[in-house]
């Protein structure tokens, strides 16, 4: 059997078919929101951020320090209870210069998402944004440090860190 266009189902539409009344449609939005339980590990991590601390955990069996914290080791499945305070410095493992918002809208001033591997952790880090840096100066391997919101504005959120800036 050879595929031909005539065999194929599907009726392509154009976006303006809606506006021109050529196609009927129904608009709706998901109404529910979520209020997620942070539990032990994430609860403590977020509380740490409020205090300006980056917390990690250590698996005794694997001798690995990681963050974001978890109460179990994904390598050896042991429960974890040892907490480690990490420095708020690290290196850029990778980055992008992004001109598109999450909803596909365009932005003039690019965002600089990056993976930051924390000093003192074993190849473990988080996703965040870079700031106070010209996009063309960003390099993989660059040393960076967290820039925190003022203490009284912190809420126990990842946004308590404004961004990471180059460590000069």
């Amino acid at each position: 059997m050879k595929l031909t266009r005539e065999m194929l189902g599907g009726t392509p539409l154009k976006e303006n078919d809606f506006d021109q009344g050529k196609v009927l449609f129904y608009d709706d939005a998901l109404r529910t929101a979520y209020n997620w339980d942070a539990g032990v590990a994430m609860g403590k991590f977020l509380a740490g951020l409020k205090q300006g601390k980056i917390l990690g955990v250590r698996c005794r069996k694997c001798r690995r320090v990681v963050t974001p914290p978890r109460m179990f080791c994904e390598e050896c499945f042991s429960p974890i209870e040892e907490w480690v305070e990490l420095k708020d410095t690290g290196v850029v493992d990778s980055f992008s210069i992004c001109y598109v918002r999450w909803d596909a809208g365009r932005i003039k001033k690019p965002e600089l998402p990056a993976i930051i591997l924390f000093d003192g952790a074993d190849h473990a880090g988080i996703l965040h944004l870079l700031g106070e840096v010209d996009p063309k100066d960003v390099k993989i391997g660059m040393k960076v440090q967290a820039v925190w919101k003022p203490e009284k504005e912190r809420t126990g959120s990842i946004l308590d860190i404004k961004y990471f800036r180059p460590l000069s």
Partner: protein
Amino acid sequence: MALIEKLERNLDLKSVFMKIPLNHRYTLGVAGEKFFRALKDEDKILASYCPGCKLWFLPPAIFCERCFSQMDKWKDVGLSAAVLSFTVAHYDLEGRKLPEPEVYAFLGWRGIEGGLIHRLGEIKPEKVSIGMKVKAKLAAKKQRKGLITDIIYFVPEK
């Protein structure tokens, strides 16, 4: 319980609230387009015919779910139907108690598989019964949007 560390004070409980910022626009499909156009423009309720099962179906579709025959024969079944089941709803979609309960019914047409589900109007809940004859009351033509709500509700047939 299997975790080596757990919270010890409810002061340490934390939860994170978030909305899912999504909007959706649903086409009504090829069958839906035909059905709702006919309702909107011609006051018709269309059923589709399966040549494999030799049955008429509501809601209509372009295929028969039972045998996968393509359905391309349509007919108007008319605005009059019978109540096959009904319920008296005391709550609305927001979970609020309705000031006046609403009646929803499963409506059938003679000789048609399936039916439609809609609201009943202009009748007290205690007067509704299974088997009762009802008729679709349509919105004014220029207010219709090509949705199931172009039928305002079904009312008892005189």
